[in-house]
């Protein structure tokens, strides 16, 4: 953090405090004699907020709590400054909107210790408090024009439009009820944070949790004062309580903020522990969790190029990192600018980035080691899954061949044999024309059987590929496709495994184009890609295809992976489909 915001905070705080302290001595001030029992505590509250805030900004620059405390202190001073400037607008802003510090206080409680609003609930509570503050005070500003005789600097409320004592009463009561409700909700939120926090979070929250009760009690009493409760002594007691609470509160926040520090000792222990680290991955997680004081810590490793998410857990299972809305924080660890792992931890640790940083640095080698192991495990899982799928696909394929033979060629040959048998039985009795007709029918069955066998054989292995090469085989595929296909094949010959895979990428791609794409044209492009080749099948059809939708494409991806290639699908609905396979040239 640069020094500038800190410097600005100090200057603003000193200026506001000085102004406040000097108020009664200004020639146009209204206090005669100077009421020290008001001036001292009133100044102390603002000063303690600004001072604790500046300390927080310096010691915990990653947390916004320091800045929020400074803002609260300045908001506390603001109305006094406003009253002293002899212009109606400042007077009116001060009498109507002087309670901004209370809303900032609510935000402080809810966002502690990071200063950030992490969950939807937290954001809702604070947004609600701001909305209520604006709404009730605007309503008040439009309908209230207090006349305070004897105050020398008294001004008209410039916002005043209309009003009646009854309306003032209703709006005032509503504002007070809202303040009480928000005090209860904010206290409840702090308790909820405490309940859900892990160890480092609770360490930080403890002083704030204890401060919740007196602060909430004071806010509620202050609203009830002069309404339900009456009496000068009570009034005095409530004011004293308020000053006490508000003066000490910032130091509670500061102590909480500083307690997040767990010390260098923990990281040193971590280094020693990791020196002997050779055990299961859980050992690294436990060591880091101990060093950071967060038993709930999780480590995910980045393994790019796997289907789905980028991160896996230590067993190699794909894992999703918690989103921005989660009650958990994520710290991504880099090496040479590229992320290698992510720590998922309690948000309180965000206030201590140096600790996270040094712990991560100490554990980097072990983490990298674990990441490589996790990567191997993830690859192993993927290979196992794809091996099972390849076996299944082989079984399905054999089933399909058997079915095709049975339903196609075999049935035709049976019919042919029956037809020939009948011709033999009738041989002597045929009229001249009938024999030719029966033989034509038999020949038709035979041709059908030959066609069926040819198609089947081609599906099992395209002979033209072996004899004439990939280009010719792709052209024969294109010629049989009902959609016009432009073939461009500019690649040297590769091993047979590669060419067969390229052929089946094109065959499956074109089969999908013909069956599902509603395309009017397609292209098959094979280009040299370093030592390997790149096969692309593109169409101008409906799009919206993915490997999950068809076992054919899934099988194709496995087939490409089996020879060490990569397979991808780009298919936006309405914008066609493009299958791309990059194959190594020398796979066997």
């Amino acid at each position, binding site marked *: 953090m640069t020094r500038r915001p800190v410097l600005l905070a100090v200057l603003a705080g000193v200026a506001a405090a000085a102004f406040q302290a000097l108020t009664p001595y200004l020639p146009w001030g209204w206090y005669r004699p100077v009421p020290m029992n008001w001036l001292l505590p009133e100044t102390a509250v603002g000063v303690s907020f600004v001072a604790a805030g500046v300390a927080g900004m310096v010691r915990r620059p990653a947390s916004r709590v320091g800045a929020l405390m400074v803002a609260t202190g300045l908001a506390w001073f603001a109305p006094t400054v406003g009253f002293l400037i002899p212009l109606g607008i400042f007077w009116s802003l001060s009498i109507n909107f002087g309670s901004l510090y209370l809303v900032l206080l609510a935000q402080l409680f809810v966002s502690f210790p990071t200063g950030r609003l992490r969950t939807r609930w937290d954001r809702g509570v604070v947004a609600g408090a701001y909305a209520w503050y604006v709404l009730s005070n605007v309503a008040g500003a439009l309908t209230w024009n207090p006349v305070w005789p004897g105050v020398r600097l008294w001004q008209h409320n410039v916002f005043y439009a209309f009003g009646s004592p009854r309306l003032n009463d209703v709006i005032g009561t509503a504002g007070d009820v809202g303040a009480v409700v928000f005090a209860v909700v904010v206290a409840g939120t702090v308790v909820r944070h405490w309940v859900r926090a892990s160890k480092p979070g609770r360490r930080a929250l403890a002083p704030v949790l204890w401060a919740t009760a007196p602060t909430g009690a004071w806010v509620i009493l202050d609203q009830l004062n002069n309404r339900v409760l009456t009496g000068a002594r009570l009034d005095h007691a409530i004011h004293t309580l308020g000053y006490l609470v508000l003066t000490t509160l910032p130091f509670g926040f500061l102590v909480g903020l500083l307690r997040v520090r767990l010390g260098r000792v923990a990281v040193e222990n971590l280094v020693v522990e990791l020196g002997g680290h050779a055990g299961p991955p859980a050992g690294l997680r436990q060591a880091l969790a101990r060093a950071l004081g967060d038993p709930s810590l999780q480590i995910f490793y980045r393994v790019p190029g796997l289907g789905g998410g980028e991160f896996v857990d230590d067993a190699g299972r794909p894992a999703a990192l918690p989103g921005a809305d989660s009650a958990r924080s994520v710290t991504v660890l880099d090496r040479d600018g590229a992320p290698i792992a992510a720590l998922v931890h309690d948000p309180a640790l965000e206030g201590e980035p140096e600790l996270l940083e040094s712990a991560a640095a100490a554990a980097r080698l072990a983490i990298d080691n674990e990441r490589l192991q996790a990567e191997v495990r993830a690859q192993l899982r993927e290979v196992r899954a794809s091996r099972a799928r390849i076996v299944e696909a082989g079984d399905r394929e054999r089933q399909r061949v058997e079915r095709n033979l*049975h339903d196609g060629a*075999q*049935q*035709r*040959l*049976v*019919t042919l*044999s*029956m*037809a020939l*048998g*009948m011709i033999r*039985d*009738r041989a002597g009795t045929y009229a001249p024309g009938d024999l030719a007709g029966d033989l034509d029918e038999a020949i038709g*069955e035979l041709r059908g059987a030959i066609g069926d066998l040819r198609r089947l054989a081609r599906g099992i292995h395209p002979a033209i590929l072996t004899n004439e090469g990939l280009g010719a085989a792709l052209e024969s595929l294109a010629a049989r496709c009902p959609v016009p296909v432009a073939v461009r094949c500019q690649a040297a010959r590769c091993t047979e495994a590669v060419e067969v895979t390229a052929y089946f990428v094109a065959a499956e791609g074109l089969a999908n184009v013909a069956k599902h794409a509603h395309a009017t044209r397609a292209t098959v492009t094979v280009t040299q890609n370093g030592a390997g080749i790149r096969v692309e099948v593109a169409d101008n059809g409906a799009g919206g295809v993915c490997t999950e939708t068809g076992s054919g494409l899934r099988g194709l991806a496995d087939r490409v992976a089996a020879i060490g290639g990569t397979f991808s699908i780009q298919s936006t609905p309405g914008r066609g489909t493009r299958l791309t396979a990059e194959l190594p040239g020398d796979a066997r």
Partner: protein
Amino acid sequence: MCYVPVSVLIVDDHAGFRARAREMLGSAGYHVVAEAADGAGGIGAARRVRPGVVLLDVQLPDISGFEVARVLLADPCPPVVVLVSVREAVDYGGLIERSGASGFVTKSDLTARSLSVLIGRAS
């Protein structure tokens, strides 16, 4: 030689086979009274026309020929059931025995004579 023509129901999903079989059986003196393309249709037709013989394909699109045979043979006055298939008997293990059918012919061996031998054995 003088006999009442035996009525036959053909159950097979291949129209080409049904046509050939009808022609062949007709010329050998059998009377093909109905055809069906699947198991459910076969059961319905058998109950409607009460054929003497059912020529029943094993591999049907809905239920297997064995299942159809079991249903037909459970009737009080069952027809003679002859199973046919492109495959050979040995491909079906003991299923043909257990089905209660009177016989099995591989389609390529099906002639009027092989059929009448099986029917004669049944009656």
